[in-house]
C-alpha cells in the first residue's frame, strides 16, 4: 500500500470570486513507502499547494488525499496527521520563534504532550541526525547560527516529531553550493537509515538528479510528467518551455550523444557520464 495516495485532486483558491485561481487540476499520485519522490515545477505550478495537502493543512476542493489509508477530509484523521507527515516550509529559519535551539526543536514534541525526558531525548537525537552537536548548540539563539546551521535546526525541529514522511519545500534554497550538497546528503541519509519517506519539492533540477527515485513535474496545476528522473529529463524542450532547467548530467549526456559521442548510461550521475567519455577517448586513441 502506498503511504500517501492523492486521488483526482483539484484545488481552487478564492472560489466564486473574480480572483478565483485553480491551483491544482486533477492530480493523482502515489507516494511509496521509503522512496524519495521529487515534485518539480516553476512558481505557480501548484507544488506548494500539493505539499500542504499531504499533511492536511489544506483539504482539496475536489478529490481526496489518503495518508496511511486515512482520508484527510475527515477532521479526526487530520488532527494527528502532523505527527505522521512532517512538513518543512521554504526558508524555515524565518519562522523561528524560540529563544534557543533546544526550545525551538522541542516545540513539536511538547505539543505531542510527551514527558520531558522523552522530549529531551528526541531533541538530542534529532539534532545529532542533522549533524549538529546538541551540547554546544542547544543554548544558542537560533538567529545567530549560520545559514546552513539554521536550515539543519529547522529540519531537526520537524524530525523530533518523529514523522514517517518528510515533505521538504525547497530545502536548499539560499544556501551556498557546499552547504547545499551537505543538506542533500543528509536527506538521503535520513531516508536510508531512518526509514523515512521523502517528498522533495524544488525547482532545482540538479538536486533532483542527485537524490530522487521518482519525479513528478507540475505545470500550472496539472501533471506534466510522472516517472523516473532519467526518463523525464530527456524531454529538454518540454521542460524548458515550462520554465524548468535540465540537470547538468542530463544535458551533458544529450549534447554528447548528438555530437556523436555515445553515452549509454541511464544514470544521472555525472561520474557515469564521465566514464562513458573516457571509454570514447580510449576508443579514439586506438
Amino acid at each position, binding site marked *: 500500500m502506498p503511504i500517501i495516495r492523492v486521488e483526482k485532486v483539484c484545488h481552487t483558491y478564492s472560489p466564486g470570486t473574480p480572483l478565483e485561481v485553480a491551483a491544482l487540476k486533477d492530480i493523482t499520485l502515489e507516494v511509496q513507502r521509503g522512496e524519495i519522490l521529487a515534485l518539480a515545477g516553476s512558481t505557480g505550478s501548484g507544488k506548494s499547494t500539493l505539499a500542504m495537502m499531504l499533511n492536511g493543512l489544506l483539504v482539496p476542493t475536489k478529490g481526496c488525499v489518503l495518508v496511511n489509508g486515512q482520508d484527510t477530509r475527515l477532521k479526526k484523521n487530520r488532527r494527528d496527521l502532523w505527527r505522521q507527515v512532517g512538513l518543512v516550509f521554504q526558508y524555515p529559519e524565518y519562522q523561528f520563534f524560540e529563544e534557543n535551539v533546544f526550545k525551538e526543536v522541542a516545540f513539536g514534541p511538547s505539543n505531542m504532550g510527551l514527558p520531558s525526558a522523552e522530549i529531551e531525548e528526541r531533541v538530542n537525537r534529532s539534532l545529532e541526525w542533522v549533524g549538529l552537536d546538541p551540547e554546544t548548540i542547544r543554548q544558542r539563539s537560533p538567529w545567530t547560527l549560520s545559514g546552513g546551521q539554521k536550515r539543519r535546526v529547522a529540519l531537526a525541529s520537524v524530525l523530533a516529531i518523529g514523522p514517517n514522511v518528510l515533505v521538504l519545500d525547497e530545502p536548499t534554497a539560499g544556501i*551556498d553550493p557546499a552547504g547545499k550538497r551537505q543538506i542533500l546528503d543528509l536527506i538521503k541519509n535520513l531516508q536510508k537509515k531512518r526509514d523515512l519517506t521523502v517528498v522533495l519539492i524544488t525547482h532545482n533540477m540538479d538536486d533532483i538528479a542527485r537524490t530522487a527515485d521518482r519525479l513528478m513535474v507540475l505545470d500550472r496545476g496539472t501533471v506534466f510528467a510522472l516517472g523516473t528522473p532519467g526518463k523525464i529529463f530527456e524531454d529538454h524542450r518540454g521542460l524548458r518551455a515550462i520554465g*524548468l532547467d535540465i540537470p*547538468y548530467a542530463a544535458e551533458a549526456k544529450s*549534447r*554528447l550523444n548528438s555530437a556523436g559521442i555515445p553515452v549509454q548510461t541511464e544514470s544521472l550521475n555525472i561520474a557515469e557520464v*564521465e566514464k562513458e567519455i*573516457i571509454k570514447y577517448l580510449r576508443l579514439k586513441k586506438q
Partner: protein
Amino acid sequence: MKTEQNFISFDGVSYFYEGGESPAINNINAEIRRGEFIAVLGANGSGKSTLARHMNALLLPSRGRVLVNGMDTRNADKTMEIRRLVGMVFQNPDNQLVAALVEEDVAFGPENIGLEPGEIIARVDAALRVAGLENLRNRPPHLLSGGQKQRLAIAGALAMRPDCLVLDEPTAMLDPGGRKEILSLLLNFKKERGMAMVFITHLMEEALLSDRVWVMARGRIIADGSPRQVFRDTRLLDNAGLEPTPAALTAARLKKAGWDLPDDILDLDELVDFLCRL
C-alpha cells in the same frame, strides 16, 4: 584622459562594520570604466555586498575614498547626484518595491528627484517597455512573479537614467524561469552598451556573461580579469570558496584521469567541441 574613463574608482578603501574587528572590505583599489560589465564573485561573507554599497554612498569608506564620476561619496552634497547616476537592485524582490502599483513604483525615483510629471511619465513608459512590463503597469507588485518583481526593480532603477547599474545577487531568490528573464535582460543592456553594470553573484555560469570578473575573498579583490582568465585558475576559485562550472569540473576530472584537455573549458559547448575535434 585616462581618469575620464573611470566612472567609479576605489582608492585604498576599507570598511569596518560597527563592532567588527576585521574589515568587511580591506584596502580595495579598483576602477569601473564607463559602459563596462563587471561580475563580482565571492562566497557568502566575502565582502561583495559591502563593496557594492560603497558604489552609491549607501556606505561610506572607513578608510580611503570612492569617487563616482569624479565626486567623492563622502561629500554629502553629492549624495543625491551619485545615487541618480548609480542605480541599485537588491536580492529580495519583495523588499525593494515601494508603491502599491507597478507604474507608481517605477515613478518613485523620478518623483524623488523632482522631475516634471510629463518627464516622469515618459521615463516610466520607457523603463516599463525595456523591462517588458507594459502590460502589468496597473498591477499591484505582490501579485507579480519573482522574475517580474525583479524586472520591476530594474525598471525602477532605469527610470533614473543611471550611468551604472549595480545588481546585488538579483537572481538568488528566483526560479530557473525568473533567472533567465533577468539574465536575458542584462544581456540586452550589455549589447546596447552605454550603461555600466556591476553584477554580484556567486554563480560562475552567470559571471560568464560579463566583460570582466572580480573575485572577492575575505574582503579583498583577489582576482581581476576576463572570465576566461580568472576561471581557469581552479586554485584561486577554491581559495575563494567558489565552485567551478560543472563543465570545468568534468574537464578537470578527465585531466586527472590522464587525458590531455585544455584548462580553459568553461561550459558544455566548449567541452563537446573539444572532444569532437579530437
